[in-house]
């Protein structure tokens, strides 16, 4: 029986723990400084919005951990000492392990903006950030205007959150259209409009230059790259995240942007693994990026590393890329690779509903016509079907013809495959 210590009780650390327990009798300790029990970070927004209480974000009841002999330790690991197989906590206590999994997640980016550490300036990542937000922006009397900096997924979530309390929001986005480093122009434009429909003051091609303080050291206004001063009571910094690895400096574990791992999720030190947001793949699979900070990849790495630790050494082999999000009321799903602009040997087929905020985009190979990926807004797509079609390299013609099989909308929803088929037959629609 080994003692496996896991730093981080997020989705990756907890998935690893659950699977290790499933397949072995090893002693497991999961460490976190953030929360007693595992909660779903993706659901933080719903707590502020009043859809859920914090306890609802915890996927397992509190008795689950003891029953499954997963020890939980609350504490901050300030140092890892690989030579002695030892963790040192901020209170100087220590813990010995036989094998170590680092699953320490991410932290919000700050780019050295003047005023970024003022009061009422914050990111949105942790449970503590949520509590802080409740103090910083409880209602629209104390927070007469909020500025959000950074047009990614967390930024738009924060905008949605603040709008549920009728707090006026100005949303500074560096790109000339929302998230268009990921979304193609049409989808991005649909979201721009939708954001504005929710009464958010969306400022495209606008960056933050400086945050001004009042005499109490609180944010009072921001200066944008256009040199405009916008008064505010709150600034949300949501310009992406990066691996949370500062505590590993000088530990001897090789670091880059994140903790460097090979295909087996092993670091340079035997017996130490890294998974989830904090891991940086030295040999990323296919077109994937070295650091993938999404829920699903964290979970998959957890599943994989558990196999290795239970004696079934296994490489991390994620299948087809998939992801999803919700922009206010619009659901977004993506499978495979759809780039914002088709690459040289690619074509895109795009269909959009004439009145509703719904669209489909299918990327396919110019010559072989095999599909490469699919985006959808407002239409639910069946993961299993698309995953199979991608593996079987089905042609765009086949996919359009059989599109109804891939629909995952609730019963009685209006079906659009006929309209999609018709528009496919008009060659002009292909961009």
């Amino acid at each position, binding site marked *: 029986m080994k003692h496996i210590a896991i730093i981080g009780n997020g*989705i990756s650390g907890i998935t690893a723990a*659950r699977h290790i*327990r*499933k397949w072995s009798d090893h002693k497991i300790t999961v460490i976190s400084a953030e929360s007693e029990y595992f909660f*779903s970070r*993706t*659901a933080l927004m719903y707590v502020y*919005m*009043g*859809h*859920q*209480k*914090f306890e*609802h*974000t*915890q*996927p397992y*009841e509190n008795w689950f951990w003891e029953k*499954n002999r997963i020890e939980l330790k609350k504490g901050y690991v300030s140092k890892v000492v690989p030579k002695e197989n030892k963790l040192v906590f901020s209170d100087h206590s220590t813990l010995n392990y036989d094998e170590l999994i680092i699953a320490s997640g991410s932290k919000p980016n700050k780019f050295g903006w003047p005023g970024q550490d003022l009061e009422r300036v914050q990111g949105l990542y942790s449970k503590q950030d949520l509590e802080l937000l409740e*103090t*910083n922006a*409880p*209602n*629209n009397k104390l927070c007469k205007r909020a500025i959000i900096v950074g047009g990614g997924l967390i930024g738009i979530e924060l905008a949605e959150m603040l709008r549920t*309390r*009728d707090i006026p929001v100005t949303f500074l986005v560096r790109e000339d259209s929302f998230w268009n480093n990921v979304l193609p122009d049409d989808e991005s434009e649909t979201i721009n409009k*939708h954001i504005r*429909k*929710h009464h958010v003051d969306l400022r495209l091609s606008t960056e933050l230059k400086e945050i001004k303080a*009042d005499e*109490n050291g609180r944010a*009072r206004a921001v200066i944008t790259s256009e040199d405009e001063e916008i008064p505010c009571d709150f600034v949300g910094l949501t310009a992406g995240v990066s691996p949370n690895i500062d505590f590993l400096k000088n530990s001897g574990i090789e670091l880059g942007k994140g903790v460097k791992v090979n295909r087996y999720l092993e670091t340079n030190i035997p017996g130490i693994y890294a998974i989830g947001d904090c891991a940086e793949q030295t040999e990323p699979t296919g077109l994937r990026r070295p650091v993938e900070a999404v*829920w699903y990849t964290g*979970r*998959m790495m957890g599943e*994989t590393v558990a*196999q290795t630790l*239970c*004696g*079934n050494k*296994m490489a991390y*082999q*994620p*299948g*087809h890329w*998939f992801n*999803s999000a*919700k922009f*206010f*009321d619009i*659901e977004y799903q993506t499978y495979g690779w759809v780039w914002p602009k088709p690459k040289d040997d690619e074509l895109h087929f795009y269909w959009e509903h004439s009145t509703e905020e719904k669209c489909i985009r299918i990327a396919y190979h110019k010559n072989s016509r095999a599909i490469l990926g699919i985006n959808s807004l407002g239409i*639910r797509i*069946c*993961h*299993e079907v698309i995953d199979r079609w991608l593996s079987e390299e089905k042609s765009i013609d086949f996919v359009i013809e059989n599109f109804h099989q891939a629909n*995952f909308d609730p*019963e*009685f*929803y*209006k079906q659009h495959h006929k309209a999609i088929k018709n528009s496919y037959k008009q060659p002009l629609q292909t961009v």
Partner: protein
Amino acid sequence: MNTSIQHNMSLSGEPPVALSTWQKIGVLVGMFGLGILLLAIFNVNFPNKTLWLTVSLISITLGISLFSYGLYTSQPAGIKNDGVWLKPMTSKGLIAWITGIAITGFYIVLYFYPQYLGLNTDKNTGLVALFDPLSRFLNGNPASQWFVYGTLYTVAILAFGIKFLWKYRNNRYEVLRTFSVMFFQLSFAFIIPELMARMNSDSFSLPYYDLKNIWPLNYYNFDQYRVDDFISSGNIGIALLIFGVASILIITPILTYKYGKRWYCSWVCGCGGLAETAGDPFRHLSDKRLSAWKLERWMVHIVLVFSVLMTTAVVHSYLSYDADKYWLNKDTFLIGVAVLIGLLFAVIWIFKRHELEKDARYGAIGFTAIILGLISIHYFSGNNIFIFGPETLRSTYAFLIGSIFAGVVGTGFYPIFGSRVWCRFGCPMAAILGLQQRLFSKFRITTNGGQCISCGNCSTYCEMGIDVRAYAQRGENIVRASCVGCGICSAVCPRGVLKLENGPQKGRINTKEVLLGNDVDLLSLSSSSDTEK
């Protein structure tokens, strides 16, 4: 700068409270309508009752409609759960308790002290009297407290149904389902039975019959007075009696096989109808703990056993007193019931034993043993009476289950325990349908590959307290006896993970070790100790 600003340090959250103009008008109009009813309760004798009742009911409906119009149509269509856990009314605050106690009080008066509502043997007064004209118009008789209740119940489903329609206007499943419960309540539960009562005369008397109210929910359907009425009303009566038996033995199994119990519980049933409309703001209050699920399984099946025994005893007690009227005699009836239950049990045991969890297996054996035991003791002892007399059983059931559980607790406590307490813990009809849904049905909720982010919205908003996320995050289908197919889990899921479906039996119940998206070649270790519940 203003330094006196006090930031609220509590984590309670503060949703915006301002009402729009439409909402304010809605509140005014609705309160006006309600006020008329209140005045009537306090014995204000309205001169033109037809007029005042009409004004009152229309005002209430209009008030609720205007309020929800103002609430929902000012925003784009979508999920409207902002502030649900922050507002006292929907998060068990003081006002929720007051409302709960008020509704409970109303039920207690309704069931046990109808005289305070103005029910009199000679001439009605107060609230009941206000409803006399409508009652006369529909069925020809003065109103009873049940007529008042039925009318208000229908108004509640219609008015809050309109609210629900606006709230979920983006979701066609919800829209159609809500039209359906509104239709069945208005026609089957309210107008048709009243009109049927109108056909009655001295020689022809059909019992009050809401055709969609199926035994055992309608536990009194086979009481002697009703069966007598059915039989003495000629062909129509016999047809209705046969329909009553066929409802539970033939129609219900077929529809449940094809569509799951939702065809009844969230599309047709009146209890379900109220829960889905007036109860909707409280659906998230249901208890999601594993312990609640355990309690639910015991309670609902105990009620089922109780209702089967009670009905058997009651029917048995009047059979063969009148050999002309009832061709069935006491003995053949008991043997028939025993054979039917034995047969059902045998079928479950032979085909589905492996799908039941251990305690469910024990429960099934236990319950079957109890029923068969009691029937045989009775049969062999020649004693005319079940351990308790049939009348005692009947009245205890009516009091405990029919009144206290279904009404006082089930509806009165909406703002505290959520909207489906009765449906989940107490309804014997739900127990039967649930058993079938779990074991012999095409219905399931499918999960979309690996897309779940474990956010918990589905579990939170499941009125039946099903931990939907526990299945979704493992990529497993949800096949649960208690699921009423309301579709809200699927609606609120921000990642499009859940889909209610009728599909083939094969692969309906699936277990997954690793979700779609990860090419993992699993250990062939056999020691997989299942960690999850």
